[in-house]
């Protein structure tokens, strides 16, 4: 089960290398490229074949690659993950779609007990090159269980890797890199940003998967975000700039392992850090960042690390989600508190 090398040159190159795409389309193209590059890559999920997925991320793939590579599975998340384990042992590289964040929990046992631990249990004799795609986060006016941010559970589980893309270029490349990875990867997709557009250069040399990235340089304070909150953080930095405050924005991209070197470097310059996330704050990714930054940047900090997050409640009825979700004003309010410390 050696990692198959992905020969990019054989992937069908689009006519124009630089295109303006939605995150949704970029993911679709990334999945297609991965399937073209490696016949062992298969897609599994509910409604992902004929329908193309409820968000159409797998649109057209079953038509072009057949029902044996794009599986409309029975409606059972433990079944999706549990059979992906067996297929991975058999040499496949399954890409599982969990239809919505809140439906991952029936598969939680298989993810935590088998996917995460088989490599360790067998001391490397079994690899688990499985990608679990999860549309996550709120802001779409949905009913219960359709707007959650469960990423901390998985970042807390040894053996899993966890990433989240925030823009179309990352969506296109990160999904292919995740499929290439011999470790299991939880791939969190910012569902409310699916239809936001950006430029994607399909010929560019992508950065590494497990690296954070500075998206905007600044000097007064640092904002760290991931997934859907990156757009919010960038908007906040834009608004702050109009008031003369210079904010640095870092897109985490990888939640496990965390790549905090760019954050430490930034905080040592700015002395102030605000972490933004939709997930509840207690025992979260944001908490972990706060802990590590105080450990590594203790003498550089001019203010405590602040977290702007969802509240420590279940996700509320959607008429209240505007209050629940961090927005530009809450981020700027936290920045003001940090600067005033």
């Amino acid at each position, binding site marked *: 089960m050696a990692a198959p090398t992905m020969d990019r040159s054989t992937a069908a190159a689009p006519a124009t290398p630089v295109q303006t795409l939605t995150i949704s389309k970029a993911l679709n193209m990334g999945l297609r490229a991965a399937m073209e590059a490696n016949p062992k890559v298969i897609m599994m999920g509910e409604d992902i074949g004929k329908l193309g997925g409820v968000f159409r991320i797998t649109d057209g793939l079953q038509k072009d690659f057949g029902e044996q590579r794009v599986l409309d599975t029975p409606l*059972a998340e433990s079944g999706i993950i549990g059979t992906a384990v*067996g*297929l991975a*042992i*058999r040499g*496949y590289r399954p890409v599982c779609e969990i239809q919505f964040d809140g439906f991952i929990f029936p598969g939680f046992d*298989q993810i935590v*007990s088998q996917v995460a631990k088989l*490599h360790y249990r067998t001391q490397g004799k079994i690899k688990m090159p499985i990608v679990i795609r999860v549309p996550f986060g709120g802001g779409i006016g949905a009913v219960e269980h359709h707007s959650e941010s469960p990423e901390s559970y998985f970042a807390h589980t040894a053996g899993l890797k966890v990433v989240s893309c925030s823009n179309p270029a990352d969506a296109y490349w990160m999904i292919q890199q995740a499929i290439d990875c011999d470790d299991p990867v939880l791939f969190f997709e910012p569902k409310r940003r699916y239809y936001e557009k950006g430029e994607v250069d399909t010929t560019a040399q992508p950065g590494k998967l497990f690296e954070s990235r500075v998206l905007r340089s600044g000097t007064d304070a640092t904002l760290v975000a991931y997934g859907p909150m990156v757009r919010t953080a960038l908007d906040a930095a834009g608004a702050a700039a109009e008031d003369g405050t210079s904010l640095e924005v870092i897109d985490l991209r990888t939640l496990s392992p965390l790549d905090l070197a760019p954050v430490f470097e930034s905080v040592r310059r700015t002395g102030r850090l605000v972490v933004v996330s939709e997930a509840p704050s207690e025992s979260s990714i944001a908490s972990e960042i706060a802990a590590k930054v105080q450990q590594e940047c203790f003498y550089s900090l001019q203010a405590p690390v602040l977290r702007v997050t969802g509240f420590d409640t279940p996700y509320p009825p959607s008429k209240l989600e505007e209050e629940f979700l961090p927005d530009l004003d809450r981020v700027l309010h936290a920045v003001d508190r940090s600067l005033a410390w």
Partner: protein
Amino acid sequence: MSSPEQWTHPEPDAAPAATAAKPTAEQVIAGLRATDEGGADLVQLLTPEGVRVTHPDFDIDITAEELRGLYRDMVLIRRVDREANALQRKGQLGIWVPLLGQEAAQIGAGRAMRETDMAFPSYREHGIAWTRGINPTELLGIFRGTDQGTWDPVEKRFHPYTIVIGNQVLNAAGYAMGQKFDGKVGDDEGEATMCFFGDGATSQGDVHEGFVWAAVYDAPLVFFCQNNQWAISEPTERQSRLPLYQRARGYGFPGIRVDGNDVLATLAVTKWALDECRHGNGPILIEAFTYRMDAHTTSDDPTRYRLSDELEMWKLKDPIERVKVYLVKQQWADSEFFESVEADADKLGEELREFCTNMPDPPAERIFSNVYAEGNPNLEAQRDEFLDYVSGFAGGEH
């Protein structure tokens, strides 16, 4: 042997109809009898008294040498089991999971497999491990706490022991789907997969989902349920109103109950089931009706939940004794043979004791090794910090 007509074998009159709001008293009694005694549908080829009997759908041609081999397998794996149990009592193992009483179910099923078939065990499958060519010493580390299974699952076609009840059934379903996707199913050269689980596991969602998945993908998978009557303290009636093999019907594949203490019947039924699967007629459920003669684990105390009379009754159905009787009656084995098997068992026991007491503890690095295939710099930093801390105690007590 048998064909797919077998699939539609009639439900016993006694079974409660799925649509019946309430079964009749007769149905309940008959159902319980089926749970307790195996019932009329139990496939048996060798009675507890060592009498060879026939079955309309299943039979097996077995040579004296083959039967001596099965006998030897069962005696040796029982010795492994008893030695390991004793090693736990001496403090050499943290825990042991006895297979006593289930030797025929496991040797029969295991010897039905081909090298190219794949097996997914639960954690009591020491007999299956034996048939896959795994040295019993390789089982010890799991229970001593030095490792979590050391064999190569791909090379041996024997997955690691799975401790979360039922998880492996879905993993096996996926593997069998892969065999099908790879074009390895459809003729006598085909591959098949077996997964092993117990009566308790049949209540798990993963087992139900495994039935569904294997069925809708026509996976070449034999579900081998060892109904040993007890899930720790809970009897099979706590898991099911229906005899377990009859559940298969609801999923659209055949279910067969075999006398799990009859190595010949188990071998015959399992070979048939594997052949059906490799030809593309899977999946199939086998319920091996057997008995856990010892505790659930060495930490368990069966006297709190079952009568010793029950054990005495099952001792009369011992899986090894009936084969010995038959071998003697047929004059297929003499005392020299039985003595040589005993000598082999003694030697194996000695090897196990020797190996176990000399097993080194794993080094501290083992905590951190192989968590990831492609590494994790944060974990590596944590490891280095810890090893640096540990090295501060070098030469001293810590």
